[in-house]
């Protein structure tokens, strides 16, 4: 088939090419590489990397544990703060978090490879199925967690550790949330998301009920009546519409659906891809979709973003990754009309844009890019039914610093929350902290403060 056949086709590449293209983006560090990388850590005091980590992992300590030949102890340090440390090591934009804060940047412009070292330690512990936590005495309390993504899993694990029983209600067929459905394939190979779910669930006391969607299968009122507390950890299930002429043509798809289909495909050759693909958007989703379109054998992949490079949500590293895979990124272009032939996408007409008094406006100049597939990555929205009287703010759930919502007995965290950063690691932090808040609230319930005469 090859890359030159117009239209959307599967099997463009040889099996060996698919294999190579969808293997690990970064090979794991071997023992020697890990020791060399770990030796570069200065063991800073009150380390800036640790401050930059949303889950506050004690990075200098875990790296020192690696350098002294104790990767298991290192993994324990990581999991103490972040039970999904394995996935975060793979998907965190470390270049804007811990590694950006690394003091090695000051003098050498090259940080310690914190993400890869974290993966080294957590991989070893998980391969040995080393479990670090035992459950406290059962409290008899049950907590409903909605969503088996990073926030929900982190919350459930911390609750289970503290002796509570947890039921996770998840809308999808498989647990993991975005880790399972939303991450680029080459960032989580070998079914890592499911292995991590199993690793987290091994603590015990956590039951997952799949295909249970809030608002369709259960309501918040049900959950409140059945459980002692509720944690809402849903993702963003809605997508922004393009509202452009021709959007209904064959070959137009939401990028998140494309990414999920690809992740779930056992044989990547079964995923059809266009010869010329245009991706609309400027975030991580746009990059993930574009890079993977290229890896599936598309001849030309173009990201069109309506603002400038400096406005893109995708990190510099991700943009460079896309460029290195042959994706071209065009700025200051907004979609005007999708051109179709026989009901199928044939191209997209775009209009140049500019900022006028801080407002984005079209310049009137237009052009057409030939395309047989268009992937929309123009933002996701929080959509949920069955939330009852829960107060939203700017379209997402409003919480305090501990994750408490405006409803008694209901906590929330992750992407569904106002102020969420759309990051796996932030979702983990919010889930974990909400669990501790729930635990404190339930403990106070069990043992009311004794009045001292």
């Amino acid at each position, binding site marked *: 088939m090859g890359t030159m056949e117009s239209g959307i086709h599967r099997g463009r590449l040889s099996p060996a090419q698919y294999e190579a293209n969808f293997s690990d983006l970064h090979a794991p560090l071997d023992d020697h590489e890990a*020791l*060399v990388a770990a*030796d*570069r850590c*200065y*063991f*800073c*005091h*009150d*380390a*800036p990397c640790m401050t930059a980590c949303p889950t506050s992992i004690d990075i200098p300590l875990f790296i020192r544990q690696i350098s002294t030949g104790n990767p298991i102890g290192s993994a324990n340090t990581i999991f103490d703060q972040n039970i999904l440390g394995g996935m975060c090591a793979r998907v965190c934009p470390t270049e804007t978090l811990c590694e950006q804060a690394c*003091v*090695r940047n*000051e*003098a050498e412009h090259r940080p310690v490879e914190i993400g890869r070292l974290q993966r080294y330690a957590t991989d070893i512990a998980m391969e040995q199925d080393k479990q670090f936590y035992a459950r406290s005495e059962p409290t008899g309390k049950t907590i409903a967690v909605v969503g088996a993504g990073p926030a929900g899993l982190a919350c459930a694990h911390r609750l289970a550790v503290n002796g509570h029983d947890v039921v996770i209600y998840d809308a999808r067929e498989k647990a993991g949330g975005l880790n399972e459905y939303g991450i680029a394939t080459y960032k989580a190979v070998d079914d890592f998301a499911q292995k991590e779910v199993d690793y987290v669930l091994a603590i015990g006391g956590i039951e997952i009920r799949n295909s249970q969607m809030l608002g369709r299968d259960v309501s918040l009122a049900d959950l409140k009546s059945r459980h002692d507390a509720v944690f809402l950890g849903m993702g963003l299930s809605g997508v922004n519409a393009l509202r452009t002429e021709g959007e209904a043509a064959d070959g137009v798809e939401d990028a998140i659906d494309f990414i999920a289909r690809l992740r779930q495909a056992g044989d990547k050759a079964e995923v059809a891809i266009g010869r010329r693909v245009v991706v609309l958007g400027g975030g991580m989703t746009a990059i993930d979709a574009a890079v993977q379109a290229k890896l599936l054998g598309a001849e030309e992949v173009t990201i069109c973003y309506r603002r400038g490079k400096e406005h893109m949500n995708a990190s510099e590293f991700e943009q460079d990754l896309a460029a290195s895979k042959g994706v071209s990124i065009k700025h200051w272009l907004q979609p005007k009309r999708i051109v179709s032939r026989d009901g199928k996408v044939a191209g997209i007409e775009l209009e140049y844009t500019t900022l006028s008094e801080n407002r984005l406006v079209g310049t009137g100049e237009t052009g057409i890019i030939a395309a047989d597939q268009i992937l929309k990555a123009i933002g996701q929205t929080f959509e949920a039914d069955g939330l009852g009287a829960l107060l939203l703010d700017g379209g997402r759930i409003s919480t305090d610093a501990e994750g408490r919502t405006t409803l008694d007995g209901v906590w929330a965290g992750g992407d569904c929350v106002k102020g969420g950063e759309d990051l796996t690691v932030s979702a983990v932090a919010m889930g974990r902290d909400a669990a501790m808040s729930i635990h404190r609230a339930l403990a106070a319930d069990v043992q009311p403060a004794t009045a001292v005469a």
Partner: protein
Amino acid sequence: MADLRNNFVGIKSPNPFWLASAPPTDKAYNVERAFKAGWGGVVWKTLGEEGPPVVNVNGPRYGAIWGADRRLLGLNNIELITDRDLYTNLREMKQVKMNWPDRALIASIMVPCEEQAWKSILPLVEETGADGIELNFGCPHGMSERGMGAAVGQVPEYIEMVVRWCKQYTRMPVITKLTPNITDIRNPARAAKRGGTDAVSLINTINSITSVNLDTFSPEPSIDGKGSHGGYCGPAVKPIALNMVAEIARDPETSGLPISGIGGVTTWRDAAEFLVLGAGNVQVCTAAMTYGFKIVEEMITGLSDWMDAKGHRTLDDITGRAVPNISDWQYLNLNYIAKAHIDQDACIKCGRCHIACEDTSHQAITQFVDGIRHFEVMDDECVGCNLCVNVCPVQDCITMVPLAAGTLDERTGKPVDPNYANWTTHPNNPMARQAAE
């Protein structure tokens, strides 16, 4: 161009870099390679008496410790003196000396502490054309159990006796190699001088266990589950060696006695430090065993370039230059006051200076200023200890700045006294008070 030619007790070599008596100088093959690489001289691996050669262990002979990036910092060795036939060594030495007449070739010797043993071997060595002999009184393992090596070097009377024999039975210059495994290095040095030695060389290796295998509980290097102490060498021992060289250089009894400096010389800087502390040349082993013979090129060019930059023409211009600056603690100027200063442009904000000072020293470095991560020395707390300088990962980021006479020391609230004053006259010194009374 600086003149690096070396004349050490009459032994001439094109540069002051000799290979020490050790595995790298065990046979002609290695020594020829060393001379090709540019080494000025070698001390041939120690010869024993005629007869069946010593045997070595057949398992691992070396243990080590490492720094970051597995850089070798210290090596330990349980290999003995040469395990080759005496006449094979003598024949090769003679041939090598003929092939390389401009290089120094020294024979290291260790035979039992009996006059006849020394009297027998010295003419054999002399016949090779060797430029001198080095008496191995330092080997700390194996041979010392048989009454040789360090067993001699630890008893000044034996040193004096053996040196006297050697001076009596050979015309070759005698270099006495000293063991550091003693309390005061001046005593064996004085004994060697009394015996008439032409020079001393030091240090030999230090008794050591480099590590223990935590699975088998065997010391490393492990021979069938057991370990024996070995001789420690490499960069980690340099400070010990420098001190011992300096002690001999400034001791009135041994002052002026030529010294061949040994112990962790790895770069030209190390070599220059030995020279300025009184060594006439240096001997190298571990650095060559770690990196190969080529390192001598860096040593030669580094020393030469530094001498050119500083205007030193010959080795005589630098040897011993630091000796007058070595002092007993009691004579250090207590009115000299320095404070640490952090170059904010160079600071990478790792915070190590702060935590070192805060946890273990004088609480004199900030962590935050106006809520911002900022490391700055508080002059009113800083005692000038230099710990922050030593733990800072960035060279020259933190420096010690002396306070000019008359300026206020914020810590004591007193102006800096321009006059030299030491402990011997300090009012807190009970001895000083007695003297005053």
